[in-house]
């Protein structure tokens, strides 16, 4: 029987080796949202530094035959055979999937950055909204005995150490959750449009605006097949996609995406792609300038943020003449200079607690 084992294994190895050599290679993995390693060019310096061999190693694993199937196999094995309830950083709960919260390392630096931002504004107030994520809000849904770190401690530390107006969403999110609402996607790390609506209402209360009721919007389900980043991490093909809702309304807008003009806050072309959340505010732009042509308000707002803001901004347009949305990683100037030069009325910083620690945009916010 030893011979049977060795012959079968040898055949498996040879078939995969051959398939690897012969199969066409793709350059991009939609599931992982990244460019795959190209076959490296032979350069003496890269060989000597070992970089060439590292690239070869990545090339092989990036283009390995049936790669995505193997990831699925591992997840299904861990979930069903080992009975694990934490796979690749995702808690497997009874009716949802929740991303784990990792120990924050950069809290002090983030506080210092926000304070520096405040100082650069020259005494002008700004609002800070930190969004606790599913692991905090739906902690009662976690598998039994799971005891992840709390985001609230870090959140409170930032709130109490930064000189600004805090907009704390925790109570409001928990209150709405108790009504049975789905505030976060199960297969993606973002909040749902309903979650973003809670953020909007809380923001309005803090600013003294009258928030629009949900009945003022035309709520549409634009897809039922959203498989976001949590899905990607598990690659469990037995999971069904979920819906994305858009709270639509008839407002005459002029939106400049890095200077390119449009009249919509949504780019529905993303519905045909895997990365469907990017339909909100047309994904990433260093500066988005939104003008509301219907409103009588003359207020202006500048937002430095992560992708959580993208689904909340469509609500905010009702209360401002102009909103400037910055991606601080790619925006060349300083947001604080922009605020001073353009006499912007309100300034909002919005980040979610799960990724603020590793967000590279926070470092360059001033």
């Amino acid at each position, binding site marked *: *029987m030893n011979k049977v*084992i060795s012959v079968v294994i040898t055949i498996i190895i040879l078939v995969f080796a051959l398939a690897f050599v012969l199969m066409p290679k793709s350059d991009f993995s939609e599931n992982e949202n990244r460019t795959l390693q190209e076959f490296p060019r032979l350069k003496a310096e890269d060989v000597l530094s*070992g970089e060439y061999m590292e690239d070869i190693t990545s090339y092989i*694993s990036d283009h390995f035959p049936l790669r995505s199937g193997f990831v699925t196999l*591992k997840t299904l094995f861990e979930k069903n055979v080992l*009975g694990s309830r934490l796979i690749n950083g995702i808690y497997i709960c009874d009716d949802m999937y929740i991303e784990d919260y990792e120990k924050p390392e950069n809290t002090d630096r983030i506080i210092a950055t926000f304070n520096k931002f405040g100082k650069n504004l020259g005494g002008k107030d700004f609002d800070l909204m930190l969004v606790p994520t599913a692991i905090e809000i739906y902690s009662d849904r976690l598998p039994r005995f799971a005891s992840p*770190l709390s985001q609230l401690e870090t959140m409170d530390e930032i709130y109490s150490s930064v000189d600004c107006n805090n907009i704390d969403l925790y109570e409001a999110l928990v209150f709405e959750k108790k009504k049975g609402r789905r505030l976060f996607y199960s297969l993606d790390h973002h909040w749902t449009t309903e979650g973003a609506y809670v953020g909007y209402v809380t923001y309005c209360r803090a600013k003294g605006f009258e928030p629009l009721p949900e009945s003022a919007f035309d709520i549409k389900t634009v897809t039922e097949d959203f498989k976001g980043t949590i899905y990607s991490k598990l690659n469990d093909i037995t999971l069904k996609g979920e819906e994305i809702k858009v709270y639509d309304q008839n407002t005459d807008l002029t939106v400049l995406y890095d200077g390119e003009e449009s009249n919509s806050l949504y780019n529905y072309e993303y519905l045909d792609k895997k990365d469907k959340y990017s339909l909100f505010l047309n994904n990433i732009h260093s500066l988005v300038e939104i003008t509301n042509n219907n409103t009588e308000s003359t207020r202006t707002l500048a937002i430095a943020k992560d992708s959580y803001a993208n689904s909340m901004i469509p609500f905010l347009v009702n209360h401002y003449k102009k909103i400037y949305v910055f991606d601080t990683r790619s925006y060349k100037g300083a947001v604080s200079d922009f605020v001073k030069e353009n006499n912007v009325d309100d300034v909002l910083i919005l980040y979610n607690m799960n*990724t603020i620690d590793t967000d590279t945009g926070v470092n360059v916010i001033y």
Partner: protein
Amino acid sequence: MLFSSLEFIFLFLPIVCIPYFLIKNIKIRNGILILASLFFYSFGEPKAVVLMVMSIVLNYGLAVLMEKHTSAKKLFLTASILVNIGLLFWYKYTGLFVSSINTVFGLNIDVPVIHLPIGISFFTFQAMSYIIDVYRGDTPVQKKLSHLMLYISFFPQLIAGPIVKYHDIEKQIYERRVDIAKYSAGCKRFLTGLFKKVLIANNAGILWEGISGGDISTLSLGGAWLGAIAYSLQIYFDFSGYSDMAIGLGRIFGFEFLENFNYPYISRSIREFWRRWHISLSTWFKEYLYIPLGGSRKGNIRTYFNLITVFLCTGIWHGASWNFVIWGLWHGFFSILERLGLGKLLDKCRILNHIYTLTVVVIGFVIFAITDFSALREYLSVMLLNSNHMLINDSLIFSLRCNALMLIVAAVFSAPLYTLIRNKFKDNAVYALGEAVLFILLFVLSIAYLVSSAYNPFLYFRF
């Protein structure tokens, strides 16, 4: 390039095996293995490969000189040992040496950053085995540089052992059987090692990292022990799995290496543990250090001195950090205590001596694992009843729940239970078929783990 990597299994191995099995001439076969080994080493160490080749040529030359000038034999031996130890010292211990001098004398010398070439601790020890064997007349001098090159650089044992002794392997270099039976046995052994490494060691490692890298203030006593046990399982399955892969690969190409592990965790004393753990290293030290020092034949005091010397060297061999020294001395301390009478005392109770041995070994591996002294002290204090920490907590139960099956399998395979079952049923056709199916399924699962480890969803829209 690790054995447990896609590039090794699916590209390197077929490219080496196909010509090797097509050509029957042993000289050409040896040539293929040397080329493959040099390529294998340069894939991870594109610069240090020159160092390794130079070291082999030098040891070869010194042994030839030793043979020609028998009157100056000792001089050439000393020269060779100085070169080998010198290389090892320079590349592995200079940093530790300078920083320790700085601490002791309050100096501020710049600590040099020297890249440690992979496998240097293994190939320098093999070179010394050769030169000492020749000096002692245990084996004739090797006239062919290529043969010595193959002995020292042979890729299965090059970067993580076992440390093959020259006198054990010499004849196989020019005379060995290569056939389908050995190929099959080798494959199976390689697979066993692959499963141990990929399915058990890596997952035990994740558990240990999760516990030791987490917040120590919320760690429970049970959690600390679970972490220590997970690390002990990780290091055993990692290292013995790697040895299995090396032995299997050797067999595929016709070589028979000696065993490197023999179920160390069933030992009933620390002395027995060292007869079962990393056997090729402990026998190396025994043959080339302990016995030349006089072994146990020169009275008690001298024996204890020799033992401590060997354990000190064993400790520091594992890495350039003081915790490895402490780990070596920790084992030395208990093995002397056993000689002084603790052994006899414990032999009266079979269960107690297992508990004693495992406790010493597991605490030892915590010392081995944590290089930072204050972190080590903190971790050990949680293990040894610190009243500020709970006995058990939710996080311990959750870890157990997610890792139960892995831990049970690891515990079962730490004991020779499976070997017993296999020996009993090896002629049973149903058992053999079941085993074959299991091996193939586990192979596919191991590939799934290897592929997944390089699967990184990159969340670029977390802007």
